């Protein structure tokens, strides 16, 4: 890890510090340990909510990854989460196959459809891609409802097959989501230190330089969409298992925007702590405000704006403060 750090350009050093995977190893370990012993202290409904929170964190990570490595914003990641959730749901209810097979399938499908979507949109950037993902998000619910023989239509599917038979289902729903979240975070941390990850970052920051070193922009786009799609599908799989039901209501256009809101709220962070903040925001706000539904979009909107404005003004304020302290 350190031998790579010596080869980094100044910009990438800043990026690695921002992503925080390398520096906050200890805090992450402590956090994971706390989360592992958490079910001992908490009641059933909280365990359930935390499980969903972990699952949503994976989705937030998928969106943030696309922003960080691809420089693109997606408001259509429910497509991938739906893909993952329905692979788990359909394999479970139709064939009785548990997560052992359905999570790898979800990952495979997510990567495949990520590539499939990335190919026709390979030349789109910024807002064009954002609008295209918007159309993708809108197409999801109607696809689900029209394949109702497989997906159960509006009623959805119930996931009941345990991952490891014999252990209480409530605990399984918690630990499987936590395990998948930690696994994905570790994989993303690995990616950051790998040659491929560096190449992707270079393609984002300087496409011409990356081209000169043999990383084509189209390749970079395809691979980051594939990775992000795969992680999105794992999020869906975790959501299906932890939430125990899969229905079109979980994959609406608004859900896709909420994932983006979670990503913005966590400042596009890729570390476990950051994505947990994003995931917690996405999961807990609707739960806490379930009595007054109309406030949810208002609060999400305010949080989104607040974080963006904070990200804009905070460095300026900090600069002003430091200038003042220098003068004093």
């Amino acid at each position, binding site marked *: 890890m350190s031998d790579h750090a010596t080869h980094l350009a100044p910009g990438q050093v800043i990026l690695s510090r921002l992503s925080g995977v390398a520096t906050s190893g200890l805090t992450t370990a402590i956090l994971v340990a706390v989360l592992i012993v958490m079910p001992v202290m908490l009641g059933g409904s909280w365990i359930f909510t935390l499980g969903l929170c972990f699952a949503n964190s994976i989705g937030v990570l998928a969106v943030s990854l696309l922003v960080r490595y691809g420089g693109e914003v997606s408001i259509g990641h429910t497509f991938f989460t739906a893909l993952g959730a329905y692979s788990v749901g359909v394999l479970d209810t139709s064939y009785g196959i548990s997560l052992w097979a359905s999570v790898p399938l979800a990952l495979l499908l997510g990567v495949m459809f990520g590539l499939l979507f990335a190919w026709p949109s390979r030349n789109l950037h910024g807002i064009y891609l954002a*609008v295209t993902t918007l159309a993708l998000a809108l197409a999801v619910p109607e696809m689900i409802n029209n394949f109702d023989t497989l997906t159960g239509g509006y009623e959805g599917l119930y996931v009941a097959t345990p991952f490891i038979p014999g252990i209480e289902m409530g605990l399984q729903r918690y630990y499987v989501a936590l395990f998948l979240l930690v696994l994905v975070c570790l994989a993303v941390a690995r990616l950051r230190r790998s040659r491929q990850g560096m190449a992707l970052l270079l393609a984002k920051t300087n496409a011409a330089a990356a081209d000169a070193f043999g990383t084509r922009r189209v390749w970079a786009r395809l691979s980051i969409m594939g990775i992000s799609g795969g992680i999105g599908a794992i999020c869906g799989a975790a959501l299906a298992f932890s939430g125990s039901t899969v229905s079109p209501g979980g994959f609406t256009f608004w859900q896709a925007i909420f994932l983006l809101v979670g990503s913005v709220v966590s400042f596009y962070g890729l570390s476990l702590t950051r994505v947990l903040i994003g995931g917690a925001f996405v999961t807990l706000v609707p739960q806490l405000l379930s009595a007054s539904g109309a406030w949810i979009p*208002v609060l999400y*909107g305010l949080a989104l704006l607040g974080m963006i404005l904070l990200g804009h003004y905070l460095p300026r304020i900090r600069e002003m403060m430091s200038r003042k302290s220098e003068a004093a």
Partner: protein
Amino acid sequence: MSFWDSLLYDLFPLIWSGMITGCLYALGALGLVMIFKCSKVVNFSHGNVAGLTAFLVYGLSSGMLMSLSWGAAVLVALLGAIAIAFLIYSIISPLVFESDLTSTIATLGFGLIAQGVTLLIFGADIVALDLPIPRFAVSVLGLLVTGYDLTVLAVAVVTIGALFMVIDHTKLGIAFRAISENPFAAEVCGLNLRSVHYFAWITASILGVVGALLIVPTTFLSVTTVATFMLQAFAAAVIGGFASLPGALVGGILVGVLMNLFTFYVSPEYSSTFLLAVILVALNIFPNGILQRVGGSRV
């Protein structure tokens, strides 16, 4: 014979009504394009804000909030829309000059707030909001033309005509075009970017209100109606190249006709998927919008 019959009785009316809705998509798309052309921001709050103002017209004219006449209600709602556009741009303007993608995400936040406010004030119920227009229908060459069709056509022609007049022949329009072409040079020449941006945002919000008021009579008014309508406007803007006003007009009409044909001949259940396919195909064949190809490229 039956083929020609179906052509005459299905195809032409479908194209006609598609063109009418297409004009409305074009109104929405023109607003999006105006904002994008000068400030490089995609305004995702466009639909929700227009929806909120449509509800405002309903609330003010139905006696829910007040019982004004329809015209007065529209006037108040227009003022409201202008105020909202002013507010939104004022808040995000520091972001606009920094990152277009960040400010685009910020508009999503405003969209969420507008939707929440609509829910808070007017609830999630479906209401009917009609236009005070003469009801008649005449048959022209086997085509049924209603008063609604003619109203939409007239309003669209007048609005779009006025818009193009302003942009082509007034000082403000020239400033708008200059800033869209090269903001830096325009600023060097003494133009105030912000005031022109305000012009674009406010004009766009007015176009949005006009489009929303005209589309609502065909369905009903709910929290999501206008937002959904604006999605077709997004598609229209993308097909037109997102930076071309005539492109948005052509794109709107094209989307209206294509959607109509698709829902009638293929399936009404896959309309969003079809829209996605149209966007992807259009962006691959005409990456800079449909009108760029026709003109050829200048080297």
